[in-house]
Structures are given as structure tokens and as C-alpha cells.
């Protein structure tokens, strides 16, 4: 049986990749995907703990996260499409209307 720590390390690596991509990428689609990556890294940690502790709480959490992520994806992609139409670009550096 694979030890729990392996899952957790994989989860942490995936999450770290997500964070790095989230901070350093300019393409808004990539950033969006890195958020999904972070969410799924967390999901992995949840199911790992659930399996290790023989409790189903973690799996319930994962289902919640999937639902919320789906809703977020719908809204987020909608925003991205509108931004892309208005600016003819997917570069987040160009989205700076809030700047004084």
C-alpha cells in the first residue's frame, strides 16, 4: 500500500506548481488552469487523508470543491470571454482599469 505521505508530497508539488504558474504566467487562461490545478491538489490531499483516517469527511469535501470549482469555472470563463472580446488580448497585464 502506498504511504499517505506520497500522496501528500504529490499534492504539495502540484499545489506549488499551481502557485508558481498563478503568479508568473501572463495568459489569463493559464492562470485559470493553475487555479484548477491548486484546487485539485487540495482534493488529492483530502482523499488521501480520508483514506488514511478511514473517514468519509474528506470525500464529502472533495465533492463540494468539485461543485464550487465547476461554478467558478463557468463564471470565470464568462468573464474571460468578455475581457478577451473587449481588449482583443488575453494578457492580464493589460487589464488594469483599477489603476489610478
Amino acid at each position, binding site marked *: 500500500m502506498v504511504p499517505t505521505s506520497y500522496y501528500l508530497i504529490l499534492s504539495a508539488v502540484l499545489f506549488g506548481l499551481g*502557485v508558481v504558474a498563478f*503568479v*508568473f504566467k501572463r495568459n489569463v487562461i493559464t492562470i485559470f488552469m493553475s487555479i484548477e490545478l491548486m484546487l485539485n491538489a487540495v482534493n488529492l490531499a483530502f482523499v488521501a487523508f480520508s483514506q488514511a483516517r478511514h473517514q468519509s469527511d474528506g470525500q464529502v469535501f472533495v465533492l463540494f470543491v468539485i461543485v464550487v470549482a465547476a461554478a467558478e469555472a463557468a463564471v470565470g470563463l464568462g468573464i474571460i470571454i468578455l475581457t478577451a472580446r473587449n481588449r482583443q488580448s488575453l494578457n492580464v497585464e493589460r487589464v488594469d482599469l483599477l489603476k*489610478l
Partner: protein
Amino acid sequence: MPILDHLWIIPLLPLLGSAVNGLLGGKWPNNIVNSVALGSTGLSFAFALEAVREFLALTPDKLPFPPQHYFDWIDAGNFRAGFDLQIDQLTVVMLMVVTGVGFLIHIYSTGYMAHEGGYYRFFSYLNLFMFFMLILVMAANYALLFVGWEGVGLCSYLLIGFFFLKKSAADAGKKAFIVNRIGDFGFMLGMMLLFRTFGTLDFTTVFAKAAPMQADALGQFGTLTVACLLLFMGATGKSAQLPLYVWLPDAMEGPTPVSALIHAATMVTAGVYVVARSYVLFTHAPTAMLVVAVVGCATAIFAATIGLVQTDIKKVLAYSTVSQLGYMFLACGVGAFSAGIFHLMTHAFFKALLFLAAGSVIHAMGGEQDMRHMGGLSKKIKWTYVTMLTATLAITGAPLFAGFFSKDAILLASFQSENGGAGTGRTLYAVGLFAALLTSFYMFRLIFLTFFGKPRYDEHHVHVHESPWSMLGPLVILALLSIFGGWFALPSFWGGPDYFSNFLAPVFSGGESAATEAAAHALELPLAGVAVLTALIGFSIAFWLYISRPGKAEALAKSMSGAYNTLLNKYYVDELYAAVVVNPLMWVSTNVLWKFVDVAGIDGTVNGIASSATSLGDTVRHTQSGNTRSYAVWVVIGALVVIAVIFFWPAAAPVSGMVR
């Protein structure tokens, strides 16, 4: 319905008249305003007459008539002040003077003010003044008296500044108000001291508790002496005595009926009334009595000398008023309270008459007040001339006229005064007598300059005309009172009993020394002779300077220009006050309070807080770059901080322990 049970109706009527005219009168024609103003004061006068009649008809077992309690005004802790009105012999005199003279002056004003703007406003203020003055004289405790006291001050301010578009009038109003405030400060301190000593401000209780107390010795400053001096400080403000008299001459900026009613007949006598009302306290404080007498006497001579050279007809009368008020205080100071009140009454008659007649002269001359531009008016305005001459004879103390009896009573009392040694009384008498000489001189100077000699005005431009009967009627009535008003107090050599002081005796019982009565009767005739002689000397000098040797007066003024200019400039008292009090205050206000405390301190604090918030915001706003990725970095950093806290904060150890 006996009025004695409903005394409140007497002051309330003028208040109603004032409210109706003030709120609604703006759009009404003059005759409706007249009927409201005259109706309310006339009714008030009628009710006062009826109250006095009922009071005099009371059987001796009902006297003294107890104060009437209407409602509690202040009830805080152990301090109580009720809306209590009272009527006694002293109040009767004041009531008659205030409502009677007040009513006459209201009638006069309908003629005098007919062509002025703000007609309804004038009568609203005048009625309001009547209300407060009646409260003042009818109040049964110091607190309510103070309400009237402040109220008449307010009305005085409003009416002095009636022509408020004129800067001098507005300034004079402010001056009157501020100078009075200095006196009121003392009055309030006096009230507080009385309350601390006696636990109440009701006249009856205070006097009942004070009467058995040990009197302070001369030169000893016990509680009663200090309280009396503080009350007298208030009186010097309201009654224009040294050193607070400066506002009264300036108050002549107000319309002439106001000068007559407020600044001659009634309000300025309030100080005398308070001293007389508090006679129980004053007789226990010989030091305070001496101060009252000396201040009164000094004021009498001081103001009379200034009156000698004034050229404005109303200014002469103003200084004359200050001088006569000094006489009243002299009387109170030497213990002759009834003589002081008697002079108050006769003075109300003849000084109101003098002012109203002067108003009639000014009216006739089309607004001219400078006596140097008058002259020869006696034939053109006969009624005014005759009535004014009557008043002059009354004030100078011509035999049989009102002032003769009242002034003689005062001089006699000061001659006999032994407070502070017999020499003090004699000195007061001599100074008072000299002031009488000066009074006679400046009054006849006024008459001669105004009514005799050649006209010194442009006869083509000024059409001298007699005033309407609404103005002359009150003059005639007051002239009659100026003659017969004195007969209430015939001295013994005249064969008559002194009705007036007998009448006031229940009020001043024990206040006036009866021991010297026999000596007094012997002295009355010679002293009266001396007084008449003095008045004659004053008259002769005035006659010599202004009738038989025209031009002599100017020559005399030139030859003594130093003294003349000092008098003309009123001893430079206004300049002195400006240098000592006003300018330093202005400097402190401008440089310390305004520029330092207000602008630098208060405004600086407020503006400083605002500008530091602005600059802080200006610094912090740069963190909001609008760059999505930098926000992302902040989110990550925040998350790392939270994680670090959870794992490495000592108290959070159990959390990290959960991870296996």
C-alpha cells in the same frame, strides 16, 4: 374678581401686546398696532390702579400682603425659585411710575414715531420692556427680579439699537449691553452669596433671617457687606453710576421716547429700587452704605460737570439723569430710603417730561439736536416751552415744584448722616449742594440756548412747527405731575405731614433713624433756604452768560480751554476705558484667542487630521497597482503568512500536532 389674587395679569398684558404686535404687526397699519400697544399698556395701568386701590383698602390685619405664588420656576436640589409676585408700599410706588409714565410715553410715541420705519417693532419692544420692568418691580425673590433685570437690559439694547443701520446706534446698543454685563456679574455673585448664606432668595425669608443678625462694623467686610457691595455693583451698571455710567450718554442714540421711558424714568432706577428693596441688608452693612453714598455723590457731581458744556440737547439730559441717579443713591447711602424712592418718583415725572419735551423740540426742528443751532423757539412752540420750563423748575428745585421736596429731603438726610463720622455727612451735603448749583446752571443754559435769544438756524429751511396733541397731551399731564407730584411729601415746616415717607414706613421700618427727627424738623427750613439760594445762583450765572452777555460764554470757554476741553471730552473716560480695557482685550482676542488658539490650535488640529489622512492615503494607494498578478502575489504572501502563523505561533502548537 379681586386683582390682588391675580397680580400676574398686570405684567402679562404688555407681554401679550408685545407678542401680538411682534408676530403679526408687520403687515398692519399703524392704527391697529397703536390700539394693541396702547390697549395692553392702558389695561395694565388700569389693573395696576385697581390693584393699588384694593391694596390700600386692605385692613391692617391683612398686612403685609403675602407674596402670591403662581408656579415653581426652578426646583433643583435645595434651590427653589418660584414665579412669585408681591405688592407692598414700595411696589405700589414703582408700579404707578412704571405703568403710568409708561402709558403716557406710549401715547407720546404714537405721535413721535408715526413716520419711522419698523413702527410695529418699536411698540413690540416697548411693550416687552413694560413686561420685564413690571416683573422686576413685582418679583418676590431675587431670582425673578433678576429675570426682569436682564429682560429690561435686553429691551434697552434692542431699543438703543433701534436704528440699527446707523453704526453709532448699533455700537451704543452693544456698549450698553456689555457694560451692564459687568454689573450683572456682580449682581449674580451677590445672589449666590445670599443663597449660600440664607438658603433661599425669597425677599421675606432673606430679610427675616438678616434682620436679627449682628450688623457689620464700619470697615468690616462680613458676608452682608460683601453681598451688599456685589448687589450695588449690579446697581452701578444698571443705574449708570461711576464707574459704569459710560453707556447711558451713548444710549441717547435710541429714539427719544425710549430715552424718556427706559433711560430716564424707569429702567435706570432699577438699581435704586434694588438697594431700597434690600434695605435690611444694607442697614446691616455700614461700609456698603458709605460706599453707596460716596459713589452716588461722586457721580452726581461728576456727571453734572460734564453736563455743563454738552451741546447736544439729549446729551445734557443724559448727564443730568446720571447726576440725579447719583442723588438717589446718595439718599439710600445715608439711610434715607424713602427720600431716595421719592426722588426716583419725582425724577421719573420731570425727567420723562424733559426728554419728551426735548423730543418735541427735535421734532419741531426736523431732527436737529444741537442746541447751538436752535434759539428763540419759545414763541413758536409755546406748549413745549411751557412744559419744559416746568420740568426745569422741578429739577432745579424751585419751591413748590416736585424736585424741591425730594432734593431737599436727600440733602437734609445727607447733612445729618453720621455714618463714617459727622464730617462725612457734611462733605456729602456740600458736594450734593454744589451739584445742585451745577444742575440749575446747565438746565437753564439748556432753556436759554433752546428757547431764548435769536434763532441760529436757517429759517428758510427749517419750518418750526408745534407737535401733534398725541405728543403734547402726555407733556401736559407730566407737567402737572412735576408740580403736584412733590406734594405727597410736604416737609413739616410746610405744615403738611410727610405722606410719602409715612406711606413707605411699613417697608422701611427700622431702616431709617427716628432719633434725629426733631433735629431734622429744625433744620428743614434753613437747609431748604440754602438749596433755593444755590439754585438761584446757578440760574443767575446761566442768565448772565447766555442772556445778558451773549458771547460771554464762548470767551469764557476760550480763556479756560483746558478745563473746557476736558469737560467737553467727558474727562476722557471713554478714551481711558478704551486704552485700559477695550484695546488690551481686543489685542488678546486678535492675537492670542483668534490667531493662536483658534486658527493655529483648533483649526490647525482639525485641518492637520484631515491632511494627514490625505497624505497617508496618498502613500497607501500605490499598493493598489491595478495589476492582477501583483494582487496574486499578495494573496500568496498572505496565505504563507497565515500558514506560518498556524504552524509556528506558540499557542497554535496543537494544530501542527494534528498533522501526522
